[in-house]
């Protein structure tokens, strides 16, 4: 029994074992400033035709939203930018964004990254940087 268990442990560890090295910043992997701008433009297009969450953006000034979101993505992916916009809490207070609508935006962001041919592992790394922000965005 101990032997069988250890075989499965070894297999689990092997699954995790693909070591990697990280020299490029995530910002570089996403295609730098141009890459992020393309992703954000794609995201804006997705939102514009989305029935579920478009209403949150009806009064949004698109040029301002684009600039700040690119800056924000740039800053959290170790790019050479400083985010100067409002805090996540300030922006989203009063919007009462549900868990479902938040995940809808994540779905659209993934779609936008797919359209820019961002590799799956790089997509996940951006999502991992964004995930901790959820508590400053939903149900406030």
């Amino acid at each position, binding site marked *: 029994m101990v032997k069988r268990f250890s075989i499965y442990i070894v297999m689990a560890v092997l699954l995790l074992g693909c070591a990697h090295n990280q020299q490029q910043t995530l910002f570089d992997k996403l295609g730098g400033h141009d890459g992020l701008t393309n992703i954000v433009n794609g995201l804006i297009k997705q939102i514009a035709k989305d029935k579920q969450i478009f209403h949150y953006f009806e009064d949004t000034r698109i040029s301002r939203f684009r600039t700040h979101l690119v800056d924000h993505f740039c800053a959290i992916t170790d790019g050479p930018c400083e985010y100067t916009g409002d805090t996540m809490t300030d922006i989203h207070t009063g919007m009462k964004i549900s868990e479902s609508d938040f995940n809808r935006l994540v779905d659209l962001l993934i779609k936008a990254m797919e359209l820019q041919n961002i590799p799956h592992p790089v997509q996940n*790394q951006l999502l991992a940087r964004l995930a901790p922000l959820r508590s400053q965005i939903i149900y406030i």
Partner: protein
Amino acid sequence: MLLLSGWKNIIKIIKLAYLTVLLLFASQLFAADGKLIATPGVSQVEGSAGGGLVPWAQLAGYASQDEVAANVFCSQAKVDDFRLRSCGAQLNLYDRVELSLAHQTFRVDALDTDIEQRIFGAKVRLYGDLVYSPWPMVSLGMQYKHLDDNDVAKALNAKDSSGTDWYLAASKLHLGAVAGYNLFWNITARYTDANELGLLGFGGPGENKEVQWESSAAIFFSRELAVGVEYRQKPDNLNLDEDDWADIFVAWIPNKDISVTAAWLDLGSIAGSDDQHGLYLSLTGYF
């Protein structure tokens, strides 16, 4: 006789096809899709949301905390001398409570008999979210199991023909954790006296409930495809050298309406028949 069983099978297939078509239509109408794709897990053999063998902390279906979801599933495990079919349904209420029903049919070739068991399950999410919370998601669950016919269980000296398992499960999905791929893991502690899921009854001579450990790990190679392993510790109340179970699985989740899971099973010794290996196939429809 042969002709009759042939007809029975055809009727079964027609019923199944009808159900599938109905589900596909229903899933288009009512789909709750507030969770990220693949995050609810699939259906385990006792009807709870989980892997194939192990119940996970996630609640079944794509309901977020403002939604209700319902799912149906059917699974089949075929090993050398046995076959288990398990079909059922799950209801997710506001991603807080999961209720499930499962009907298992266990084919024992050596006795040329079917053992049937019904399972009612309930699971409550105590803490967290699989993806977003800093600590793992934790849920408490129970599975009430009732054998339709306890002849085999009695013959093997099992104490009861029904029983209740309690379990505490913790799960987490780490985004981009392994070379950028998402890593899932789960640990479950189950308080049980069920022999081979309860199919061979509950308890045994002088044996009481104990905690058994179960665990799963998986890597998502894309949004739609996960490959993983599971391990499930089991009691040996009947002194039949009941073994722990393990599997290697591939889950394919092409969209939020359906998932397909295939696994290679290593179930060890079952009721005295050694080295039971085989294949597992499971389908879940979400709506």
